[in-house]
C-alpha cells in the first residue's frame, strides 16, 4: 500500500465548476475548461475544412468577380482591429473576475460584446456591398464558386462571433443577477474567454490568408 502512496496525491472529493457533484478530479483542471479545449480542437477541424474548401476552389470560379475585385483591405482592417481589441477587453474581463471584481468584469464583458457586435455589423455592411455593388453572388444562377465559398466561410465565422456576443450578454445578465459570482465560477468567464480568443484567431487566419495574400505579388 505504502509503495503506491505517491500515486494517490490527488484529492478525489473536490468539486469543480458549477456542478456540486461528488466528482473525481484527476488532472486538477475544471471539467468545463478541459471540455472547451477539446471543443476548440473540434472547431479547428471545422474551420480547417471551411477554409480548406475555400482554397481547394481558389481560382476555380468560371465567372467573376474575383477576390481582388471585391476586397477592400482598408475597411476590413478596421473591423479586424475592432475584433483584436475585443480580445484585449475579454482578457481584462477574465482578469477582473479573477480579482473578485464582478462589476468591473461585467463592464469589460459588455465592452467585448459591443466590439464583437461592431465586427458583425461591419460584416453585414461588407456582405451587402459585395452583393449589391460588386455582384458577388452566394447562391442561385448568378452564383460563383468564389461567392459560395467566401460567404459560407466568413458567414460561419460571423455566426460564431454572434453566438459569442449572445453568450457574453447572457453572462453579463447572470453577473447582474448574482447568479455568476467570482470564486469557483470565475472559470466560466475564463472558458468564455478561450472561445472568444479562438474565434479571434480564426479571423486572423482568414484575414491573412484570404484577404491579404490576395494582394501579394
Amino acid at each position, binding site marked *: 500500500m505504502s509503495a503506491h502512496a505517491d500515486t494517490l496525491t490527488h484529492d478525489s472529493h473536490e468539486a469543480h465548476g458549477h*456542478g456540486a*457533484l461528488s466528482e*473525481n478530479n484527476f488532472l486538477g483542471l475544471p471539467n468545463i475548461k478541459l471540455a472547451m479545449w477539446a471543443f476548440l480542437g473540434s472547431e479547428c477541424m471545422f474551420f480547417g475544412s471551411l477554409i480548406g474548401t475555400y482554397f481547394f476552389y481558389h481560382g476555380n470560379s468560371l465567372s467573376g468577380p474575383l477576390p481582388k475585385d471585391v476586397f477592400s483591405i482598408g475597411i476590413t482592417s478596421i473591423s479586424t482591429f475592432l475584433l483584436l481589441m475585443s480580445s484585449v477587453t475579454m482578457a481584462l474581463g477574465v482578469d477582473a473576475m479573477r480579482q473578485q471584481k464582478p462589476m468591473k468584469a461585467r463592464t469589460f464583458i459588455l465592452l467585448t460584446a459591443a466590439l464583437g457586435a461592431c465586427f458583425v455589423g461591419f460584416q453585414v455592411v461588407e456582405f451587402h456591398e459585395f452583393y449589391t455593388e460588386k455582384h458577388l453572388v452566394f447562391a442561385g444562377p448568378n452564383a460563383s464558386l468564389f461567392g459560395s465559398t467566401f460567404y459560407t466561410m466568413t458567414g460561419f465565422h460571423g455566426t460564431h462571433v454572434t453566438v459569442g456576443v449572445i453568450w457574453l450578454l447572457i453572462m453579463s445578465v447572470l453577473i447582474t443577477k448574482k447568479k455568476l459570482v467570482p470564486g469557483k465560477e470565475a472559470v466560466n468567464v475564463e472558458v468564455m474567454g478561450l472561445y472568444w480568443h479562438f474565434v479571434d484567431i480564426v479571423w486572423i487566419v482568414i484575414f491573412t490568408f484570404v484577404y491579404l495574400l490576395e494582394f501579394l505579388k
Partner: protein
Amino acid sequence: MASIADFAAAQKPIYHQERPSKTGLMDWLTTVDHKKIGILYGGAGLFWLLIGGLEALLFRIQLAKPDQHIFIGDTYNGLVTMHATTMVFLAVMPMIAGFSNYFVPLMIGARDVAFPRMNAFSWWTFFAGSLTINASLLFCGAFPAAGWTGYAPLTTKEFSGMPIDFWWAGLTLLAVSSMVAGVNFVVTILNLRAPGMTLMRVPVLTWMMLVIQFLLAFSFPPVAVGLILLAFDRTFGTVFYSTGMGGDPHLWQHLFWLFGHPEVYVLILPSMGIVSEILPVFTRRPLFGHHAVIFSGVFIGFVGFGVWGHHMFTAGMGPIADAAFASTTAIVAIPTGVKIFNWIGTMYNSKMTFPTAMLFAISFIPMFTLGGLSGMMHASPPLDLQQHDTYFVVAHFHYVLVGGALQGLFAGFYFYMPKISGKMLNETLGKIHFWVFLIGFNVTFFPMHMLGNHGMPRRIYTYPADAGWNTENLLATGGVFLMAGATLLFVYNLITSLKNGKDAGSDPWDANTLEWMTSSPPPVHNFDFTPVVLSERPLWDHKYTPGMEIPVPEQAEEIHMPSPSWKPMWVSASAGLIIVGLLTFSGIAGIPGWPLCIVGALGVIFSVYAWVTEPV
C-alpha cells in the same frame, strides 16, 4: 476480501439530489443517469440492427438468383443505402455509445460522466437524427438512394430527390450528437478517473473509448462541413458541388473520407477493447503486452487521420498522393498486428474457459484478421484499381465490421449484460447463436471474395445468368438467413434472460476491473465509496494479491447526484426545428418553412439559458 460487502451492509452513503428522479416514462425522458442513457443507446442500436439486417435480407433476396426483378432501381439503391447508413450510424455506433455510456464511468470509478445533461442532449439529438433519416420513407415514400457515402454531385438536386434532404438533415444531427459526446467523454475519461488510476491503469476498453472520442470530436467536423455545403446547394442553390460552375467532385470525397476513415476505427476500436477485456478474464491472466495494446490503439487513432485517400485511388489524385496514402495505409498493419499477437500471447498455453463471450472474443481475432489482410491488399493502388467497387471490397469491410466490430459487440453483450440487468444470459442459446452466426457470416461473405475477383461490381441490382456468379450469390443469400436467425435468437435470449436468467451477483466472471466491484445492476451512484486504484487490475489484486486490497473508508461519503432535467430535450428539439426549417425552407403547399429556423434558433438560446441557470 469481504470488506467491500461489509461496507455496503454497514454504511449507507449519504445521498442527495437537487430534485428527485421521476418515475416511469418521465424518468426515461428526463434522465441524466449515464446508465439509463447507455441502456437507451444500446436498445436503439439493437432495434436498428434488426432493421438494417432486414434491409440486407431484402436486397439479398433480390440478388439470390440472376435476372430477378423484386427490388429494382431506386428501391434497391434505397435498401443498400439505408442498410449501410443504418448499420454504421444507427446500429453499431449507438451500441458503442451504449457500452461507452454504461461502462466508462464504472470502469474509472466515477459517479457519472463529466456533463450528465450534455450526455442526455447527445442521446436526444441522436434519437432525432435516427428518426429524421428514416422519415423519408414516410414523407417521400422512398429511401435516400445515393449510397451511404452520398457522393456529391450525385446527391445534388440535379440527380437526387427529396429523400437526400432527410439524409443530410439526419446525418447533421448525428454529427452534432457525436461531437458533443466526444468532448464529454474525453473530459470524463481524462478527469474523472478514481484516485490512483494513472493512464496506464486505465482499462484497455476505456482507453479505446478515449481514442474513439477524440476521433469523433475531430473527424465529424469535416463531414459536417460537407453536409452543410450539400444542404446549402440543395436549399439555397449555392454551387459547391456544381461541376458546371467549376466545382470539383473530389471536394465531397475528401471531406467525407477525412471523416469516413477515422469513423471505421471508431467502429472497430471499441470491439478491440472489449476483446482485450474479455481474454484476460477467461484465461486467468493479465493481458499480454498491456501497454503495447494501448499504444497501438492510440497509434491507430492517429494514423486514422492520414489514410483517407485510399478510398479515392480511382478518383485520380495523382501518383504522389496515391503513394503517400498507400504508405500510411500499409503502416496501419503494424499496430493492428501488435494487437493480434498480444491477444494470441494472452491465450497461448493458458487454462481457458469458453463461455459465449469468450467464443465471440476468440473468433473476433481470425475473422478480423481476414478482413485486415484483404484491407492490406487495398493499400496497394494497382491492386485497388482492380478491386475497387467490386464485391471483394464488400467482403473486406464486412469481415472487418461484422466479423470484427459486431462480433466484438456480441462478446460485450454476453460479458456485460449480467452487470446491466443483474441476470445471466442463457449459455446454451448463446452457443447456438455463436455457431450459427459464425457459419452464416462466413457463408455470406467468404464467397464475395470470389465474386469480386470474378468481376461482379457492387451496387447492381441484378446480373445475367451466364456471368458465372450464380452459386456464390445463392450461398451468400442463404448465409444471411442464418445470420438473421442467429440474431433473432440473441434478441430472444436477451429478453427472456431479464425474467428467467440466473442471478449474476456482482462479479460473475471473477473479473479484473472496477465495474465488477459494485452490485449488478449498480446503484444510481455507482459506488458506495470512491475506490482507490492500486494496479491495472484493481479488483483482481483486491481479491488475490495480499496487501493490494482496495481500502474501505471509515465513514460514508456524502454523494450529490445530478437531477433529472427536461432542458437537454428542449435544446435537441429546438435544434431539430432549425433542421426542419431548412428542410422545408422554400415552403410546402405555399407555407414557407424558414420561420421555423428563427423559432428554432430562439428556442436554442432560451433553452440554453434555462439550462445554465437550472440548479443541478
